[in-house]
């Protein structure tokens, strides 16, 4: 693992290699520092580090895959095209058409498809050997995407309903509510929809990937740390847990990418919906 030329040992390993149980060395638990990387190089004030490298490589990988699959498509598809089509169709039909509808949703298909595969691949880095770091556990990435989505659906609400209509939409204005409760509901809805929503949208993805990475690092470090004397038995348990967690993370990565785009579609659908 240390042979990777572009990335130094500091970038690769989140713990010390010569520290073991019964060797008078304490266990270095993973923590926030597991998510901080030394810059490989700096341009101006900007530090180019491992998450950024992974983000760029992941971007290239997505573009490469879809280029190979879709740039010269055939009516009778090849293997790569078939896989790409399956993924594309899953998002288009299973998410966009299901929530927004075919007529209104068609416009948002590219955005949602790009979002899904971007988030998924950035999640996927978590279990890819040598990389093993989910880019989405750096809060900037999900936050940027959530803000982008926010900038899609908020102007859309204004465009669709006008200023008053948009205000009613944001505040969940409902004349059937009793007069005393109505202002309260409107204040809560306003905060919930307009202020908290982008934050929860981003944090949901970030926190899942953050916690997942923490668990993987924990079991990996523990496996190595306990690999001494009787500790080998514990180490084996920890190793099995590492494998189990990798499988679990694969599942969570997909689910979180799916949830992220599903929420995106729900927000857009809410912006398009008639007043209720």
């Amino acid at each position, binding site marked *: 693992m240390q042979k990777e030329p572009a990335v130094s040992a500091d970038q690769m390993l989140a713990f*010390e290699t010569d520290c073991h149980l019964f060797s008078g060395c304490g266990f270095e638990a993973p923590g926030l520092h597991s998510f901080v990387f030394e810059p490989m190089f700096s341009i101006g004030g900007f530090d180019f580090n491992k998450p950024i490298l992974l983000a760029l490589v992941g971007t290239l990988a997505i573009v490469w895959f879809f280029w190979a699959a*879709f740039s010269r498509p055939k009516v009778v598809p090849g293997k790569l095209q078939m896989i790409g089509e399956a993924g594309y169709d899953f998002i288009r039909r299973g998410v966009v058409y299901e929530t927004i509808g075919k007529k209104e949703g068609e416009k948002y298909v590219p*955005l949602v498809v790009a979002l899904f595969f971007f988030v998924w691949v950035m999640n996927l880095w978590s279990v890819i050997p040598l990389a093993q770091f989910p880019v989405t556990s750096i809060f900037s990435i999900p936050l940027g995407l959530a803000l982008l989505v926010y900038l899609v659906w908020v102007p859309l609400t204004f465009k669709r309903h006008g200023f008053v209509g948009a205000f009613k939409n944001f505040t969940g204005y409902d004349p059937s509510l009793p007069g005393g409760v109505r202002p309260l509901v409107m204040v809560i809805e306003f905060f919930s929809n307009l202020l908290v929503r982008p934050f929860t949208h981003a944090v949901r993805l970030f926190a899942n990937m953050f916690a997942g990475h923490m668990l993987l690092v924990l079991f990996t470090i523990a496996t190595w740390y306990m690999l001494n004397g009787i500790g080998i038995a514990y180490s084996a348990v920890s190793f099995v847990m590492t494998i189990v967690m990798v499988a679990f993370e694969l599942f969570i990565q997909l689910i979180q990418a799916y949830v992220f785009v599903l929420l995106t579609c729900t927000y857009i659908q809410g912006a398009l919906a008639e007043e209720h």
Partner: protein
Amino acid sequence: MNALVNMAETEVPQNPLIPPIPELVIGLIAFAIVFFFLWKKLLPSINRVLEERREAIEGGIEKAEAAQQEAADVLQQYKDQLAEARHEAARLRAEAQEQGAALIAEMRAEGQRQREEIIAAGHAQVEADRKQAAATLRQDVGKLATDLAGKLVGESLEDHARQSRVIDRFLDGLEEAAEADASGAAR
């Protein structure tokens, strides 16, 4: 000590929820690249092919449906024609039978009529002949009798009415005798 751990110990790790702006920008640029390629080039390209495929499949189905429809139409047409032909044949047969029966009946009636005509004509002829013969005979017999009577009596019977009455009486007597003869012969 690992440099990473060093750093972790020397610096207080920043709050993970405070995003560094450069990462935010890089992340968005990365996403923009993916989005741009998919939006402008790759999804339109695959959509075109998906549409083509859908048309190809639906076109095939439509063609098959059209062929099936045509076959069904032809079959129906054939059946209709067959039924029509059968119907026509039955109709012709019935018509022919009817015509034949009518013809026979007509011919029979015609024959009957002709026969009766002939018989009636024969009867009429016979009657006319008989009447003529009777009239001729009556004249001739009357003349002969008068002549004979004139010769015998030597004088002409002057009274025409009387003469006629006498002759008639005579002839009636003759007829009665002849009838009596005829009935006797028949007996």
